[in-house]
């Protein structure tokens, strides 16, 4: 009781935090502000408020300067010093300000994490690992340039086959072939199972669910990849994420451009299973999510406020309830049996015509998973999501401190497959931090040359197509709150109506077409065009000896 009475006479504000503790500090210019109130209205975290202040104002009227000082009440914009209403740095206030009167500035001295634990719960957010340093992928350079001994190709003129395979590829020794009249034919008498294999573009859009994403965002991505397939002849595929897909899309001919994800909550699968008899096309693949790079070992959570009518319908759940996916599949008791059975079941649902593969988060144990899958002839690939992958909602500690960088994780797995001679049989899909600094094609090419058959992107595509504001200085990262100021990760119509799905689709097409040009600009001087340079590690260098040794590539400085 004593302490309470003390607090009540706390004239020195001793238990209040100062603005200097805040991660972003608002700079507001009195002289430019016309008090329209747009900034305070739009601020997603209510970090700024209109306020009044008694102020000494000096003014002069008339032909001869006669300055007079008066004290009067003025209207101002103030930053709130409450950590629950911290400025996220999203800068939407600057976006709407007609007079450039306001902007947030990152405060490197902030003590945000010291205070963002009110109520005894850790800080939760969206986005990805808050580490703005240069990633391993961005340190890799392409140094084996074809010169006089091996003419480089012309990226603009030569024909390039920037394609890869999704699906279990048979070893050459096991192909059911026989020679007939100097020609190879399939030996039907062997009645051998030939796994389904899709030819796809090596850059794919990773799993982001309808639910985590707003309807126009998801729709924009879907329209974009459909256009790429149907008009641009680029077989880009996209993964649904957990939570099903709109039934109309499931029954459409466009389903072949989508990988349907099944995760531990099995959300949406009642609808999907019921749609199977009505499907006119098979999906591109089935991804079984066992882990996510951004939050390894964590389940998913779609908060009640995001579960509106549309989402509830697709997922087959009541509206306005929290949808928690457990950290692990409840049926999973061993990789040898449970994972194999899951792959078998999914394969069986589509008559073994669809590639089925697991996705795991980057981990030191990835090779154990890999080796198990290598022995399972129905496993179509392994997708590994590194620590720099993004998410819609997770604890900050999971995002910042848990997980494995993708570069060495992928390389270890690839070299393990090389040892077994299975590097072409089980495609590796790499993800997590691709395009973190904007170098989409270069990061993707580096991963391919380290051994990836395909590369998956998520955060980059949201940044590039829908202007997602998030970055590695914890800017915005409000995805989990349903208050995404861009309308990307929200189910609130007042927010998502800011997004135009047609514009997103247009940007998806631009992003993939420009990445295609850049990939060719990388592959051409390295002299590779007929196939992807998967595992062509002699073309890579890095400026750090330890990293070079670890990745088994060249060191160059």
């Amino acid at each position, binding site marked *: 009781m004593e302490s309470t009475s003390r607090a009540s006479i706390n004239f020195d504000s001793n238990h209040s935090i100062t603005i200097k503790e805040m991660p972003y500090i608002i700079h507001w210019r009195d002289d430019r502000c016309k008090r329209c109130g747009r900034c305070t209205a739009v601020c997603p975290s209510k970090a700024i408020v209109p306020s009044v202040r008694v102020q000494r104002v000096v003014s002069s009227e008339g032909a001869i300067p006669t300055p007079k000082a008066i004290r009067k009440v003025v209207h101002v914009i103030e930053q709130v010093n409450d950590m629950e209403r911290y400025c996220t740095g999203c800068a939407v206030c600057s976006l709407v300000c007609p007079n450039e009167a306001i902007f947030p500035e990152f405060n490197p001295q902030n003590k945000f994490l010291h205070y963002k634990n009110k109520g005894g719960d850790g800080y939760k957010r969206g986005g990805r690992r808050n580490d703005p340093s240069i990633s391993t992928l961005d340190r890799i350079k392409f140094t084996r340039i074809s010169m006089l*001994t091996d003419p480089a190709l012309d990226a603009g003129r030569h024909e390039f086959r920037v394609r890869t395979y999704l699906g279990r590829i048979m070893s*050459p020794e096991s192909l059911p072939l026989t020679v007939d009249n100097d020609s*190879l034919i399939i030996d039907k008498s062997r009645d051998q199972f030939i796994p389904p294999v899709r030819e796809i573009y090596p850059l794919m859009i990773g799993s982001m669910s309808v639910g985590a994403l707003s309807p126009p965002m998801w729709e924009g991505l879907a329209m974009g990849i459909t256009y790429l397939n149907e008009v641009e002849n680029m077989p880009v595929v996209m993964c649904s994420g957990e939570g099903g897909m709109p039934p109309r899309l499931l029954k459409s001919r466009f389903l072949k451009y989508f990988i349907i994800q099944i995760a531990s909550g099995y959300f949406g699968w009642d609808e999907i299973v019921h749609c199977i008899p009505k499907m006119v096309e098979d999906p591109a693949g089935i991804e079984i999510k066992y882990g996510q790079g951004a939050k390894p070992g964590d389940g998913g959570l779609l908060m009640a406020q995001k579960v509106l009518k549309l989402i509830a319908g697709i997922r087959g759940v009541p509206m306005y309830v929290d949808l928690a996916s457990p950290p692990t599949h409840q049926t999973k008791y061993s990789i040898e049996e449970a994972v194999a059975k899951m792959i078998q079941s999914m394969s069986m649902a589509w008559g073994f015509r669809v590639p089925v593969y697991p996705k795991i988060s980057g981990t030191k144990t990835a090779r154990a998973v890999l080796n198990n899958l290598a022995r399972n002839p129905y496993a179509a690939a392994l997708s590994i999501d590194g620590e720099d992958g993004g998410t819609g909602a997770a604890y900050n500690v999971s995002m910042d401190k848990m997980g494995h960088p993708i570069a060495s994780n992928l390389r270890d797995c690839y070299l393990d497959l090389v040892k077994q*001679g299975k590097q072409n049989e089980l495609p590796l899909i790499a993800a997590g931090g691709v395009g973190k600094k904007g170098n989409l094609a270069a990061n993707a090419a580096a991963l391919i040359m380290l051994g990836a058959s395909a590369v998956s992107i998520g955060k980059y595509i949201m940044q590039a197509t829908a202007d997602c504001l998030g970055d590695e200085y914890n800017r915005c990262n409000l995805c989990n709150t349903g208050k995404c100021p861009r309308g990307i990760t929200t189910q609130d119509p007042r927010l998502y109506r800011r997004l135009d799905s047609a514009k997103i689709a247009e940007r998806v097409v631009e992003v993939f077409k420009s990445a295609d040009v850049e990939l060719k600009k990388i592959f051409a001087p390295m*002299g*590779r065009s007929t196939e992807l340079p998967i595992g062509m590690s002699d073309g890579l260098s890095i400026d750090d000896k330890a990293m070079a040794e670890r990745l088994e590539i060249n060191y160059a400085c």
Partner: protein
Amino acid sequence: MCRLSAITSSEYISPMEPVIALETMKEGHDGSGLGLTLKDLGGEFEKLKQYPILSGICSTKGMETLDSFMKKSGFKLKHQWSPKIKPVKGIQARDFYFARAYDYPASYKHKSFEEKEDILMNTRLSLRKIGEKDQSIFAFSFFPDIITIKEVGDPLEIAEFFGLQKDTLKAKIILAQGRQNTNYAIYLYACHPFFIQGYSTMTNGENTAFVPIKEFLSSRGFAGYMGYNSDSEVFTHILHYIRKKLKYPLHYYKDVITPLKDSEIQNRKDAEALRLIKQSLRPLCIDGPNMVIGFTPEGYCFMVQDSKKLRPGIVGGVKGKYGLMSEECGLDKIIPNRDRSKDIFPMKYDMIIISPDAKEVKVWNQLQGQA
């Protein structure tokens, strides 16, 4: 650019012929080495066709090791050829250059040829392993009716150094390569032609996709797929792999190293099979620039190129004698009295296959899937 010169003939010819062709093609510095692989031997080896011949180079100490190893392995020396060395400035003579015909160990006499091939290859690899560190033994080939000669230096000078112009050594198929070394060390095991169990190839150009191809071959679990001191050795091993291991007809070599586009595959009668091999053998796809000349154990010779950057190549001759060269002037020198209008300059879809005894030349077109 490395110079390539191969001759296939119904008559025995001297190895000087392809070397002279190399000399005709010479431009600029070219001292990285000469390699010769002779198949279907005449001269003193004509009557020894059933005996495997070990070709190599040894130091005095290496020869002692080799003798004791071969004796211990049960091989009995039947015949030995050594060149009559004529000192040439710039070429440092090594102690022993040899081609030795051996009789199989008693336990192998009645075994199948397949089993014999394996012991021959494993013996060669063991000798290589024993002598590689101190360079006391170089073993290039160990196979019936095959001789391989290699040395570092200018090709014509090496031929003079070995006294090949006066030697009785003859063969019906000879591959010769004048190496212009670029990015790998000048080293005897890096000299073309490369040989494995009856298959031999030589190449010019640089193999851009060397690393993934090497890794794929090395991981096949076959001891012979090793070495790779040159990025061109993989071409020989791919040939061996698709012919001997996978048992594909020879022309699929082209489909493996330069796979067709999907739109092109659908016009082939064997489209179904082609799609599968394109997927399963994806790591063996080359991107050039390369031209490959080689032979098979049956005596077929072939020329094939990558599908884009295309190192030059020409095939021409008369019935009973054809040359496969990297440049036309080499062919002019060796077979001047041919009908030049019938010379073949293979392009991206072509694989030229010459039947044994140089009887017939076929241009197999990959797009059409037929000759």
